[in-house]
């Protein structure tokens, strides 16, 4: 299974030499070395136009990375504003007549930007674009032009959000519930058009990945040799393709409702707001799995690589991703328990909600089992991965409190919900995203960052995050409702803790950004040296992206790479003098033992 490596697939660039120093003697070492500037995807063509019109999935991934970081920065500042305002029971930042309106606008834009512009595209579009073809051993995604088009749709959608902000803001909450959204005079139409466009960006990305994974696999890359990140991306893409169109039509009908009063959602014209909530959550619950599934994928890879141990229960993790994707479509009603659904429907949805937690739990257990007796390196990515497991578990388990009918009656629309979804979205997705960025940063930009700085940032983020959101569970269970600009003074202490936490969290994120930017020389004008050149395989990963240079050449692989088991680390050795992992093979004559499989892998399972 593992040894389908053919000599013919060793790229000419790879250096083959006799082992020396720390490695066992009598063995051969395989390492792709470093790319030349004309191969390096970052430098092979120059000028701003070569980026704007690029069809290279890696460059598109980098552009997404920049884009989502900017969006995250903007929405993050809004979040700090919210927390500052809540420092005092009567509100600290916004004063006067319009204080509550300001508050509503700020939390709405925070939520909408975070959800539509940051979290949903973060892992799949930014990291996914960079990684999916490389991990798969393909030259590019199946539709490179569509891929670029998705990115510009994202930009376009972002512009709509900015214009909504500049027009009269938005104060409906990110959920756009009717009837308020049909009556408020803030820029609902601009914002929903933006979300509509972003939806298509997301659909096209998902579609592209499904096709890429189905048809672009090189010989030897069977379904069960795919890294788990690819399984997770595949599952995510299924949701993106199936759920996002419903958001599209919902928002379109909402726009029609505002302009022509079509009377589908607007009670004034015989419409039913509960119908709107059904439509909205049919997308938005699966959408929370768009956010978390790719994070699961990252964590599966990080845990295994940094524990230097084969992933435990590969197939369980792979299948549970698909199970989550499909079961995720059955539970949307748990957001509407108090909205006036029939009691039968609430019971059904409550029961179904518990089923989704099963595959999530399966993953957590498998990660723990993977770490058990592994040789764990506490690198920066691993620190983030550990913090993910801790935080996601809390977030997921509190989801069960909310999915239980009786308790949700009490907890719905309180800070408990706020804490729950921040634990899964920030503690889960954002932390996994950061872990992924730290893990693949050397591959993306060819530079190592300061390990100390990275670990420090992980620690600060973990501490700051818990300080911010743990008190909110308490606040919520004591009855503090969400989306309020002022509160009863009895809640002041907890709110203040939360505000201090948010500052610490913000600081931690800033440290992370600084560490990463410094490594690529952004602060060289301050005399801060940039990071050391990254070897092809700094962590000892066995997936294909570590078999090409750091950064990868623009063509990824000159010829279809040899595909082995993605979690078999047995032939990887640490080479101390160059601080890198290399593939070590017993010395042997380089003669093809068998002919390469001639049919592409996708041909085998043309079901």
């Amino acid at each position, binding site marked *: 299974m593992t040894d389908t490596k053919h000599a013919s697939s060793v790229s000419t660039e790879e250096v083959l030499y006799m082992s020396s120093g720390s490695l066992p003697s009598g063995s051969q070492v395989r390492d792709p070395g470093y790319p030349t500037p004309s191969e390096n995807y970052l430098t092979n063509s120059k000028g701003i136009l070569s980026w704007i019109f690029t069809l290279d999935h890696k460059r598109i991934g980098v552009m997404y990375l920049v884009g989502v970081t900017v969006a995250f920065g903007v929405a993050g500042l809004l979040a700090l504003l919210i927390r500052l305002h809540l420092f005092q029971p009567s509100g600290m930042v916004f004063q006067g007549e319009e204080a509550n309106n300001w508050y509503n606008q700020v939390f709405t834009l925070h939520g909408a930007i975070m959800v539509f512009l940051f979290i949903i595209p973060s892992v799949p579009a930014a990291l996914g674009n960079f990684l999916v073809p490389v991990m798969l051993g393909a030259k590019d995604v199946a539709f490179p032009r569509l891929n670029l088009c998705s990115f510009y749709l994202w930009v376009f959608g972002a512009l709509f959000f900015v214009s909504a902000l500049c027009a009269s803001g938005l104060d409906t909450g990110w959920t756009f519930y009717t009837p308020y959204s049909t009556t408020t005079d803030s820029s609902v139409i601009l914002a929903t058009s933006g979300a509509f466009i972003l939806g298509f960006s997301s659909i096209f990305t998902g579609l592209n990945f499904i*096709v890429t994974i*189905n048809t672009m696999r090189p010989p030897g890359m069977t379904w069960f040799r795919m890294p788990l990140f690819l399984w997770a991306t595949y599952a995510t893409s299924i949701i993106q393709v199936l759920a996002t169109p419903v958001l599209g039509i919902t928002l379109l009908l909402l726009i029609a409702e505002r302009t022509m009063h079509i009377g*589908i959602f607007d009670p004034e*014209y015989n419409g039913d707001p509960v119908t709107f909530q059904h439509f909205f959550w049919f997308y938005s619950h699966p959408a929370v799995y768009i956010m978390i599934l790719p994070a699961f994928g990252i964590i599966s890879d990080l845990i295994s690589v940094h524990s230097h141990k084969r992933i435990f229960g590969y197939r369980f993790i792979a299948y549970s991703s698909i199970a989550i994707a499909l079961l995720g479509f059955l539970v949307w009603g748990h957001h509407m328990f108090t909205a006036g659904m029939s009691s039968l429907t609430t019971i059904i949805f409550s029961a179904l909600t518990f089923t989704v937690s099963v595959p999530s739990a399966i993953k957590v257990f498998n990660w723990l089992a993977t770490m058990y007796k592994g040789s764990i390196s506490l690198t920066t990515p691993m620190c983030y991965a550990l913090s993910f497991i801790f935080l996601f578990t809390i977030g997921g388990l509190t989801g069960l409190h909310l999915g239980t009918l009786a308790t949700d009656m009490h907890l719905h629309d309180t800070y408990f919900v706020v804490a729950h979804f921040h634990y899964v979205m920030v503690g889960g997705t954002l932390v996994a995203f950061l872990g992924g960025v730290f893990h693949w940063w050397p591959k993306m930009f060819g530079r190592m960052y300061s390990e100390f700085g990275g670990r420090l940032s992980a620690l600060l983020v973990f501490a700051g995050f818990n300080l911010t959101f743990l008190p909110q569970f308490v606040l919520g269970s004591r009855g503090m409702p969400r989306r309020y600009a002022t509160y009863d003074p009895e809640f002041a202490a907890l709110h203040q803790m939360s505000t201090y936490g948010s500052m610490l969290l913000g600081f931690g994120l800033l440290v992370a950004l600084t560490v990463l930017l410094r490594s690529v020389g952004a602060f060289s004008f301050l005399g801060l040296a940039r990071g050391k050149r990254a070897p092809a395989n700094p962590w000892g990963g066995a997936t294909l992206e570590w078999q090409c240079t750091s950064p990868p050449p623009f063509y990824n692989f000159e*010829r279809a790479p040899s595909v082995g088991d993605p979690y078999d680390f047995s032939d990887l050795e640490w080479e101390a003098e160059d601080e890198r992992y290399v593939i070590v093979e017993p010395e042997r004559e380089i003669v093809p033992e068998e002919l390469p499989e001639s049919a592409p892998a996708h041909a085998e399972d043309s079901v």
Partner: protein
Amino acid sequence: MSTIEASPEVGHDEHGHDHDHPPFLAHHFDTPEQQFDSGKLGIWLFLVTEVLFFSGMFCAYAIFRALRPEVFEGCSQFLNTKLGAINTGVLLFSSLTMAWAVRCSQLEQHKGLVGTLAATLSCAMIFLGVKAIEYSHKWAMGLLPAGLFFYDPNNPHPTDHPNYLLFICIPFLIALAGVVIWLVLSLLTANRFHIAIAMPLTVVCLCFFVGVGLGAFLESGEESAEHLDGHADSDGLAGAAIVQSAESNAIAENAAAVAASGAMVPVDESVLEILSTDPTNSGVASGLSALEQQTAAAGTSTITGDGEVLGGITTTEVDVLTPTTAGVFFSIYYCMTGIHAIHILAGIGVLVWLLVRAVRRDFNRQYFGPVDYVGLYWHLVDLIWIYLFPLLYLIR
């Protein structure tokens, strides 16, 4: 079934593929078949998104039909079955020519490909022409989405409205003029490539007006019948359109049944008025105003003092012809058919692109993907219409 055969070339020729890559094969694919399979899977997934996109509207339709079946029955009579049926036929025929176009492209019959694509485009234009008649007619009558609905049964054909048909036709007139100018210029310069494109496109643009003519002809036949009925209806009661059809008996029966099932129970309005002054009782207040609206909408009083009902048909109308009832039906009608029409427009766009490429003879047995993909899209648009037609036009 799919024929996956390992051609001996594959697997050896990845390196230095640039010379033996045919021009239509994108650099990141190994074989034309891989490229075709990818595109095909991609377009099927796109169709999946389209299905889910439309599902929202079908869901809204189902909810409101379940809620107020009588509204749907009553309002469906305003939709002209003949026009709907003609359009169904036109779309089915365009599906045939589209499927034929795919065949032509697979067999490298270039002339046939251009011809079938042009036929598909012409059908699309006829469809839109007929729709233009339907829409403009309804807009003029005030049969609009709930917020804009102003249909007045006493004056079903107000005359003081803009010429909607003209507005719809203007963009198509401009397109026609443009294409004709293009044709003339290319004839003058004797550019055969341009002639080969502009000629079919002229026919295509003309077909929109064929559709308009066809629609106007059928609609006017219907209308005169309607007027006759309206005059015969000496009571001056509302909704001649409902009685207009040949099956008025069945409707009357059904409406009578609705009435019999306890439709009009006497309502003491003064009690309601007292209740509605209580601010906590907003439900009653709105109910009362709704009642007033309905009464107003019914025009000549249909609910007599002692609560007797003047006749089955009228009862249905009272319920049916308000902005919040018929209006919602027409909202759904416009959303569904409107978004469908937008898909037709998009289809026309890609078909024109295909036509140009077909004239250029871009397609061959190894590379017919684009025709196939557009074909699949076009059939989906047809598929949706296959459901829309009976659901909207044929409610008894």
